[in-house]
């Protein structure tokens, strides 16, 4: 029996290929170096799941460009979400901060997709409980619009205009086995 191939046509289109994604990460790394005056006293905090490998990649690129070691950690925001009651509890991810904390540092939050802004709000709430950074900035791979809160990113890999019925899927080698950004229709 032949399987219908309708599933594939609904699977959407590629927005960034693996090579393009690598270039975008390189560009953000350069922009961070420029805006933070050589990434002094910086810390990159990725928001799980895919923000964490992105933060590590940015740190690796910064090291390759300027030979500076910028700590890359993780900031889990599950316990700060405002939609737990609506969507149910989910597994709590790891939080790893630089050994000497985030007090007085320039903290750059890293996430894959910026959408409603609620994740970033939760991340700001979480940061407040962990210390007092001198400055907080936001780096995202994709900004897909539809903000529900007054939040904007300082570094954007790619702006993608989307409809609410679409979804942006970021695939990273560390998590998904390949690098790609896709725009898909949600049924």
């Amino acid at each position, binding site marked *: 029996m032949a399987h219908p191939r309708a599933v594939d046509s609904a699977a959407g289109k590629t927005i960034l290929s693996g090579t393009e994604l690598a270039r975008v990460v390189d560009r953000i790394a350069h922009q961070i170096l420029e805006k933070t005056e050589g990434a002094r006293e910086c810390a990159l905090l990725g928001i799980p799941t895919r923000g964490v490998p992105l933060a590590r990649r940015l740190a690796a690129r910064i090291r390759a460009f300027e030979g500076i070691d910028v700590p890359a950690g993780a900031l889990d925001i599950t*316990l*700060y979400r405002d939609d737990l009651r609506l*969507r149910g509890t989910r*597994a709590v991810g790891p*939080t790893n901060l630089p050994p000497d904390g985030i007090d007085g540092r320039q903290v750059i939050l890293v996430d894959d997709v910026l959408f409603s802004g609620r994740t970033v709000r939760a991340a700001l709430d979480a940061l407040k409980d962990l210390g007092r950074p001198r400055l907080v900035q936001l780096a995202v791979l994709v900004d897909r619009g539809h903000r529900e809160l007054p939040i904007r990113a300082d570094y954007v890999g790619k702006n993608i205009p989307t409809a609410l019925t679409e979804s942006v899927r970021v695939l990273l080698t560390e998590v998904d086995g390949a690098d790609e950004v896709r725009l898909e229709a949600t049924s």
Partner: protein
Amino acid sequence: MITHLLSAADLDADTATLVLDTAAEMASLAGREVKKLPTLRGRTVVNLFYEDSTRTRISFEAAAKRLSADVITFSAKGSSVSKGESLKDTALTLQAMGADAVVIRHSASGAPHRLANWIDGIVVNAGDGTHEHPTQALLDAYTMRSRLGRLDGLSVAIVGDVLHSRVARSNVLLLHTLGARVTLVGPPTLLPVGVDSWPAKTSYDLDAVLPDADVVMMLRVQRERMDDAYFPSVREYSRRYGLDTVRVRKLPEHAIVMHPGPMIRGMEISPDVADSPRSTIVEQVANGVSVRMAVLYLLLGGAHK
């Protein structure tokens, strides 16, 4: 995820592991400047304690407070219970006051099960009679995993008054689910009838069990629940089933010594063993808060009718 936590048997291996993993993240809170999370803001947790308790009550209270829940602690002494109010009426009163979760300790086995049918909120069993104490089993499993790195294949000896111990029962069920091998050790009079049907081995000889044990968990002899002479004398019990320095030498190098507390030094455990580096007794208390935070978060944090 389950609706209530009444028995350690309610947890399958995946759910139990989720609780332990969540607890590990909760534990990192202890090293933070602000030891508080906003997760359960606006939720009310009632601690309903019909039996005396220090550790468990304070531990649940700290756990709920660290998650920003409002906590009402109710002890039967000094309440309408002493005027003769039934458990059901007390439960309905708490319900009317808007309790989202009730943590109950009761001297009657099965009281939490009854309570779960009467109220809408979630029920967490904090020890019922000689039946179960699931959060203790979870914190014990957490302690073993963090000290020894795994649970699967561990050999655990639970020693002493198994008959009256809800800790032992919950531990046997949970450890079996998580792949550990449990041996219950005690005098024949302190092993319950029907213990053969438990997923555990039994032994009357502590010295024979020790060389093979990764974990020795000592239980308190619960005199308050004893209506009969279960052993000739404290001294005799202590000589055969007490853990002292000489016996500890028979343990493998890596083995740990646990006790759910309260312990009677000199009876089931000697003071030098209780204070030795192998002993996890204080660690267990600290882990208790993290594990109970995980349980409250997973049961209460999400969608609720």
